[in-house]
C-alpha cells in the first residue's frame, strides 16, 4: 500500500528526514516511534501530501504521491477540530467539502456518531468536550470520508492514562471491524506495541530499526508477558545510539 524510497526533507538547513525507505502492506498497521524532533511527524505529513519531499518517491496504492490524496485520512495531533463547528458539522465537513448530498451526509454522520458512541454530543462544540470525546470526533470526521489509508499523529498524547487506553482500544476495534492501512506516529512505546503491526523506531531524521509485532490485534495484549517483552525490545532500540 505504501512504498517510500530514499525520502529526504529539510527545513531550511536542518535535515528533517534523510534516506527514509519503508513499505507498509495494504490493511496493515505501522507505528512510527521516536523522540521529539526526530522527524516522525514530518514523515507522516509527507505521507499525507502536506509536505513535498526534496528527494525520493512515495507510492500509495501503486500511484506516485504528488499532493493531497482523496482517500487518505489524517488525524492531527491537536485533533484539528474547528471550534466554531459543532460535533455534527465537524464530522460532516469532509463530506460537505466533497460535495456529497445532504441525505448521504446525514446518513453517514449519524452512523459514525453512533459507532463512536458520541451521538448524544452532536450539538456540542469542541470547547464543551473532553479530550477523549474530541479525539472520537476527529476519528469520526476522518472515517466519514471512508479512507483506505489512515494517518494519525500522536492520537492519545494529550489524554490521561485511562482515556488513552480507551482510545487505543477504540482504534483497534474500528480497525478490526473494517480493516484499512494505518500509520500511527507516537512517542509512547505502549501505544506503538498495541497498535502497530510493524513498529518503526526512528532516530534523528533516520530509521533506526523496524520490528514486526506478531501480537498485534490481541485486545488483551496489555496483560500479557509478550507485551512487556516487545515493549522492552522497542525501548532497547530507542535507547541505542545513532
Amino acid at each position: 500500500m505504501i512504498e517510500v524510497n530514499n525520502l529526504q526533507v529539510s527545513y531550511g538547513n536542518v535535515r528533517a528526514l534523510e534516506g527514509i525507505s519503508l513499505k507498509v502492506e495494504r490493511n496493515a498497521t505501522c507505528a512510527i516511534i521516536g523522540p521529539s524532533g526526530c522527524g516522525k511527524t514530518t514523515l507522516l505529513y509527507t505521507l499525507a501530501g502536506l509536505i513535498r519531499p526534496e528527494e525520493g518517491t512515495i507510492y500509495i496504492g501503486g500511484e506516485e504521491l504528488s499532493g493531497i490524496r482523496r482517500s487518505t485520512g489524517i488525524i492531527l495531533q491537536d485533533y484539528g477540530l474547528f471550534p466554531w463547528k459543532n460535533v455534527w458539522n465537524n464530522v460532516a465537513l469532509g463530506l460537505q467539502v466533497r460535495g456529497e448530498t445532504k441525505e448521504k451526509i446525514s446518513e453517514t454522520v449519524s452512523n459514525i456518531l453512533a459507532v463512536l458512541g458520541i451521538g448524544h454530543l452532536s450539538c456540542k462544540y469542541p470547547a464543551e468536550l473532553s479530550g477523549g470525546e474530541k479525539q472520537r470526533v476527529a476519528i469520526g470526521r476522518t472515517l466519514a470520508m471512508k479512507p483506505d489509508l489512515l494517518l494519525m499523529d500522536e492520537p492519545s498524547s494529550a489524554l490521561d492514562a485511562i482515556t488513552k487506553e480507551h482510545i487505543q482500544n477504540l482504534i483497534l476495534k474500528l480497525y478490526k471491524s473494517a480493516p484499512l492501512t494505518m500509520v500511527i506516529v507516537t512517542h509512547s512505546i505502549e501505544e506503538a506495541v498495541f497498535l502497530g503491526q510493524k513498529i518503526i523506531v526512528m532516530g534523528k531524521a533516520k530509521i533506526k530499526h523496524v520490528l514486526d509485532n506478531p501480537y498485534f490485534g490481541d485486545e488483551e495484549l496489555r496483560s500479557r508477558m509478550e507485551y512487556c517483552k516487545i515493549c522492552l525490545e522497542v525501548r532497547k532500540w530507542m535507547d541505542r545510539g545513532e
Partner: protein
Amino acid sequence: MLQSPVIPSPFAAVLNFITILPAVLLPHELASLARIIAAAAFSLLLGLPLGLLTGMNNKADRLITPIVYILYPIPKVAFLPVLMILFGLGNASKIILISIIVIFQIIVTTRDGVHELGKEYFLSAESLDMSRAQLYRHIIIPAIMPKIITALRLTVGTSIAVLFFSENFAARYGIGYFIMNSWVVVNYVEMFSGILALSIMGLLLFKIIDKLESRFCAWMEV
C-alpha cells in the same frame, strides 16, 4: 446652574420624548438608523475583502497596509464638503463619510484576525482538500467573526458621532439635525428628547450587534 432653562428637568424631557416620539422623532430616528446601517454594510462589504486580502496575501499586505496606515489617522470629517460636491447633498455623502471612517477599523481587525489564526486550522483544512472558497467559508470567515463583531461594536460610538456631525449639513431629516435645530430654536426640552433618542438608537445598534454575535458566534458563548 441646574435651575437654568438650558437644562430642563429629566421628567419634562422624558415626557416630551414620549409625546413627540411617534409623529416627530421617529422619522428622524429612522433616517439616522438607515444611514448608520447602510454605512456599516458598505464598510463591511468593502473592508472585509480588503482585510482578508491583506491577511492572506503577503504581497497585498505589503502594498495595501502602508496606504491604510497613512489614511487611517487623517481626520476624514474635514472631507464632508468635498464629499457633498462629489456625491450630492443627500444621503450618499453622509453614508460615505461614516464609511470611510469606520472601514479602517474593519480592514485592520480583519487582517489581524487572519494573521492570528493558528497554523493548525490551515493544516486541517488542507488535509480535507478544501478549495480556496471553502477555506474562506468554513474556516477563515467563521474564525474571525468574533473580531469583526467586536470591531462593529467599537465603531458604533464613532459612527453616531460622525452621523451627528454630518446631519448638521444639508439635512432635513436625522436625529443630529433634530438636536441641533432644537438648540438653534432654543427648545431645550426637545433638544434633550433628541439626545435621548440618539442614546436609544445606540442601544438598539448594540442590541442588533449582540444578536448577530449570538447568531454567528454561538461557539464563543459555551
